[in-house]
């Protein structure tokens, strides 16, 4: 349970920063070929990104209490974001499925 929770804290931090990165034009361009991230998607991505980071805080506090939990959260933020940076630089295609899902969702939202 403890191991699952810490893996979740790391995963949530990574995903949260991945969303935030995708919401930026520069990184959106790599995955979609579009020069600008549509404002609607950008907004949703940002909200989702920040929400995931806050979920991470909740999980860390639940796992470790206020003292250790806040430290675990603070340090995983750095590790998660730096992992996203490394992914974008050396293995950008790992994030392609994520971008495709976002695009598809956005298209569906436009059609409906």
């Amino acid at each position, binding site marked *: 349970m403890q191991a699952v929770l810490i893996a979740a804290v790391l995963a949530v931090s990574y995903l949260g920063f991945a969303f935030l990165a995708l919401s930026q034009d*520069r990184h959106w361009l790599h995955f979609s070929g579009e020069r600008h991230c549509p404002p609607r998607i950008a907004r949703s991505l940002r909200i989702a990104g920040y929400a995931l980071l806050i979920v991470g805080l909740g999980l860390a506090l639940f796992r470790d209490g206020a003292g250790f939990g806040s430290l675990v959260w603070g340090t995983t933020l*750095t590790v998660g974001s730096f992992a996203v940076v490394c992914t974008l630089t050396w293995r950008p295609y790992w994030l392609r499925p994520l971008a495709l899902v976002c695009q598809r969702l956005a298209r569906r939202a436009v059609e409906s």
Partner: protein
Amino acid sequence: MGASFRESMGWLHTWAGLVIGLLLFAVFWTGTLCVFDREIDRWMNPSTRLVYSGEPIAIDGLREEAGRLSPRTAPWAIVLPTPREPVLSIGYRGRGGFERTLFDPLTFKTVAPAESWAGTRFFFPFHHTLHLRIWHLGTWLTGLAGVAMMALCISGVIIHRKIFVDFFTLRRSRQPQRLLLDLHNTTGTLGLIFYFVMSFSGVTILASVYYPSGVWVAFEGGRSGYVRDTYDVFSRPHLNQPGPPLGSLDAMAATAREAWGGLNPGLVRVFHHGDRNSYVEVRPSIEAEVAMRTDPFFFDAATGAVLYRTSIRETTQVQQFLTGLHFAQFRHWTLRWLYFALGLLGCVLIVTGLLFWIESRRKAHAAADWKGVGFVEGLTIGGTGGMVLATLAFFVANRVLPSGATFRGVARYELEIWVFLAVWVLSFAHGWMRCGAAWIDQCRLVAGLCILAVALNGATTGDHVLRAWTDGKLAVAGMDLVLLAGGFAAAVTAWRLQRRRQGTAPKQFRHHHLEGQSS
């Protein structure tokens, strides 16, 4: 000095970074090592590689032994084991100063003394004194480094032009400058809070050294008054009258453990042993929470009655939280590894900052025939690569020197430290002589020394990775594995640098669609 605020901050960041950079690297590197100080202790002092899982132990059996060991009336203490520090020790003031005798916590048999200063007695003091104890010089220098780090963090944020746009940007570029600046920016931005909190807490821990006037003015009796007031320490005088024998330490520990909610005691200290006014201090283990809470109980030595329970004020609690956060002596393996990772990231930040200074001036200095770049490059090689080499040489020397070795009256632990300092100084000379090629040499040496250290550990103690792992000596196995990983990384770096130097850039650096976009 530049005209605008941002330009002046840029000036500050550049030159403070250059002047303080190497000092900061030494502090960051040893700090990162100290995250695993006890594990380094186990590796370097094989006699203490015991396995203890943390169950409470009875210490009454050691009372007589302790009384016999301590030849003076000075206080003596029993330091209880933890899974990370699996030896029980009695500390006392012997004829040659402070001494420790080690015991196996399960059998109470004496353990051969620790011959090396290893992590807790070498790297940890080095982290805040730089092994320079004259006039507290090292302490002042590390304080300067801490304050400078905070200034560098703030000025770095101010001069970063696009902190949010470039938040995730690390461009792979043929130009070393571009890559170095991106690496410096991302490691700096993403770890900013950690570096700032560590520098701030580091400076507050030693604040009473840097701002003694506060202690002199605010507390009656100066320093001792400050300690008494801040930590609410109990004491009573020596009466010079023989008293009843020492009561049960286990009963006192049990009383305290109950009041602490089941926390194991970490330290049991006896004052005025044998005197009528003798008393015992029992402190909790500092493993359980972030704050390094002292929270001691004081007992009458003979009857075991509670004489005093310390109450810690809020301000002291904040200070103890900051101290605990910095010392990282708690039992939390995830956080320990995260600290280690962030410490290494900080080292990358400092190295890339220095390398950027060098690379962005290389052409201009060559054109103007200045020696600045060559000088700083040699300094950087000695101060960063040399620091890593010196650390590894320290480990290897520890495994090569036979037990009890002395050389011209210099003890074994001092020989190890001399090896460390000598390799450090030599790598500066090497950096100046070989310039650019020195990086490749040193990466190769690092890789070789890592493997040598692991091999020597297996050969001299028999605890090779697999056996250490199956025996439950995870500290030893873990350190071997980290050394192997570091050696591998150094070997790959050496290989890549070599290829780049020969002009055949590895395939990974061919033109990529991420490159060349507008920034």
